[in-house]
């Protein structure tokens, strides 16, 4: 690491830190329906949407009504995207005459973007039309991110409200997420990205003659608008196959800085929104502290492993799969951020990382995407761990667990366990199936080595936690993987969202119990340590055997070969 790397990391955390109370406070205002600096501009548009959609925006919903609308809306989005992909060859905005997307790949892609995963078994510039990208994928980038924000907000309302079965209005939360938060941030980020050289046009691909006389075909398209939301909405699906390693998606160190910042911006701010809405800012800071400690620990290990160099090649720097304009430190920061937050975009290829850095990427996802996590999804995922931590702490001292004045009882615990264990079960069961079946094995680039296992483990971890990044040596565009990974993404998304909505509803109707001397405090260092221990133990206990056979063995092999 040289001085510029230190400056890079330092300014990253400073700017992120400053943005947390600013953006977090703003988001709290938005979701509480308070006036804010965007109200004069956005409110007319918001009212207009409610009028056109005939939304009874003052009517609140119970968790069942909320879940019903959320599910119908999401699955309708999936169907529309699926048909858009299946028939893109007959639709306009297709200058390169791309054909229809085959059914298996189209279904996998539609599920992937609807669930905020953005797993990509295809290369955008090779198979997708501009219409599919902007009217299909980009729309789901916004809506899946907004859905995550809605669910997080309902859970906060459930905690705040007293003896009230209603948790908000889905349409209002959805509209506000898009209009006040995602859209304005995306517009600002797009403009910055374009100034750096990210393309934004509807032209035909450019045919050029290189200096050596060869022909090169250069893809075009409305990239900047899509890259902005893919980073801000923790979506991660690139317009182009190489994602943000591609110079047209991420041309300069400055564009790289902004995009790395955008990955954690909203998820980090959500902790402040939480503290602000429940009325105890320290509660939000405690959760943020747990996230930051886990994040910096993972980042440090990954940096240490990656900067050590490859002992099998005389300590040669790990630059395979990395771009010259970024280098090692910014690539590892991005990798850690993109896997800790369920973003999944990449600015370097994770499969070529040193084994321990690769391990950290997988581990970040195995924590359940709660270290910052997805927009909204990270917070509600973390709150599931908070509930479990409070429960365990309650067991230890022999009291009924409480959190922020609400009793945590059997129903909440059952749902929290379900939300935490559903993705984990999927990862292990499906990885096992892939490792003993012919179609599972034949897709591996590193078949018969620990890295082959890592490829499969990475894929299912990424899908079940709605991340979307990959050890991309795995050829995932097969019937087997399109199908199993699609299923993982659906289960990993909705087997968490529904339990969270149930908890929101069940907490909302409970009475408020004022804190007493026996109440277990959830805003101090002890709690932060317990929470971290809970996350690490669940991550480590469930997955340690699998990780030992994959990246850990690979690391040991590398050392002994060197």
């Amino acid at each position, binding site marked *: 690491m040289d001085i510029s790397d230190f400056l890079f990391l330092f300014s990253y955390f400073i700017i992120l830190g400053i943005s947390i109370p600013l953006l977090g406070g703003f988001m709290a205002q938005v979701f509480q329906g308070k006036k804010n600096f965007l109200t004069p501009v956005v409110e007319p548009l918001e009212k207009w949407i409610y009028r056109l959609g*005939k939304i009874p925006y003052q009517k609140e919903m119970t968790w069942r009504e909320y879940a019903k609308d959320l599910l119908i809306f999401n699955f309708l989005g999936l169907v529309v995207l699926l048909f858009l992909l299946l028939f893109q060859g007959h639709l306009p905005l297709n200058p390169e005459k791309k054909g229809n997307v085959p059914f298996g790949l189209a279904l996998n892609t539609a599920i992937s973007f609807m669930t905020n995963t953005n797993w990509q078994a295809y290369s955008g510039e090779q198979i997708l039309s501009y219409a599919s990208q902007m009217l299909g994928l980009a*729309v789901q980038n916004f809506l899946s991110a907004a859905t995550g924000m809605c669910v997080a907000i309902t859970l906060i309302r459930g905690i705040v409200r007293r003896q009230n079965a209603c948790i908000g209005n889905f349409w209002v939360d959805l509209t506000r997420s898009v209009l006040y938060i995602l859209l304005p941030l995306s517009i600002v980020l797009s403009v910055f990205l374009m100034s750096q050289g990210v393309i934004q046009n509807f032209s035909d691909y450019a045919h050029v003659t290189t200096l050596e006389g060869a022909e090169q075909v*250069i893809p075009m398209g409305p990239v900047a608008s899509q890259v902005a939301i893919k980073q801000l909405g923790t979506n991660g699906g690139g317009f182009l196959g190489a994602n943000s*390693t591609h110079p047209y998606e991420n041309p300069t160190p400055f564009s790289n800085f902004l995009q790395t910042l955008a990955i954690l911006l909203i998820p980090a701010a959500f902790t402040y929104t939480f503290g602000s809405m429940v009325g105890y800012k320290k509660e939000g800071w405690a959760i943020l502290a747990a996230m930051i400690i886990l994040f910096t620990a993972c980042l440090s290990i990954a940096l240490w492993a990656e900067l050590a160099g490859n002992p099998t090649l005389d300590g040669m720097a790990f630059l395979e799969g990395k771009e*010259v304009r970024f280098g090692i430190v910014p690539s590892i920061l991005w990798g850690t951020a993109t896997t800790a937050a369920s973003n999944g975009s990449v600015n370097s290829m994770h499969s070529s990382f040193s084994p321990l850095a690769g391990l950290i990427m997988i581990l970040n996802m195995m924590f359940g995407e709660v270290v910052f996590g997805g927009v909204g999804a990270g917070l509600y995922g973390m709150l599931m761990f908070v509930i479990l931590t409070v429960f365990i702490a309650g067991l230890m001292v022999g009291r009924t667990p409480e959190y922020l004045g609400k009793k945590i009882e059997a129903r909440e615990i059952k749902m929290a366990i379900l939300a935490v264990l559903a993705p984990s079960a999927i990862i292990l069961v499906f990885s096992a199936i892939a490792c003993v079946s012919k179609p599972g094995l034949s897709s591996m680039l590193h078949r018969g080595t620990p890295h082959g296992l890592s490829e499969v483990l990475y894929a299912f971890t990424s899908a079940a936690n709605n991340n979307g990044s990959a050890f991309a040596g795995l050829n995932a565009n097969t019937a087997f993987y399109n199908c199993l990974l699609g299923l993982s993404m659906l289960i990993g998304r909705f087997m968490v969202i529904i339990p969270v909505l149930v908890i929101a509803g069940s907490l909302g109707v409970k009475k408020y119990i004022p804190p007493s001397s026996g109440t277990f405090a959830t805003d101090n260092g002890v709690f932060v340590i317990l929470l971290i221990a809970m996350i690490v133990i669940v991550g480590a206990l469930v997955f340690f055997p699998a990780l030992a056979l994959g990246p850990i063995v690979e690391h040991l092999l590398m050392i002994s070969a060197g």
Partner: protein
Amino acid sequence: MITSIKMLFLFVILTGGLYPLLITGIGQLLFHDCVNGSLVVVNKKIRGSALIGQKFSSERYFWGRPSSVEYNAECSGATNFSPLHPEFKKSVLARQESFCQAHKIVDKKSVPAEIILCSGSGLDPHITYQAAYLQVGRIASVRNLSEEKKQQLLHILHLNKKYINLLELNLALDNLCE
């Protein structure tokens, strides 16, 4: 259901239609060259994009990084080799060997890692200053550069501290030799 259909339709128009059009409008107005691909035009012909790497294999040019897609811009991508893949090690050592031979380098460790390792996009437009510097001798001898021109070339390199855009460098080289 009806509400869902209406709302989805509205959001498709807003986030899928109006938003990208607005951004395109702003971009075409303010950053015309950038948003159209930073294309490099020489004598009214497009010779490439400043951001997209090209394949250089001629002795007369500075060489770029190896690319898993051979700089085919239509299918960006990487090798995804793990550090332990046997083919990875073999090809890296072979590239190191041939780079050393082409430039009469004795100490193999002085070859910068990036010039023998594939990039993430397969289209990396840059190489490090060090990798360019090592190639000056070969180019000067192949092109029969005078000492004065060689100094000019080194001066161009010195303008870039950490890394250099390869297409721009090779265009400058062609200019220098005209």
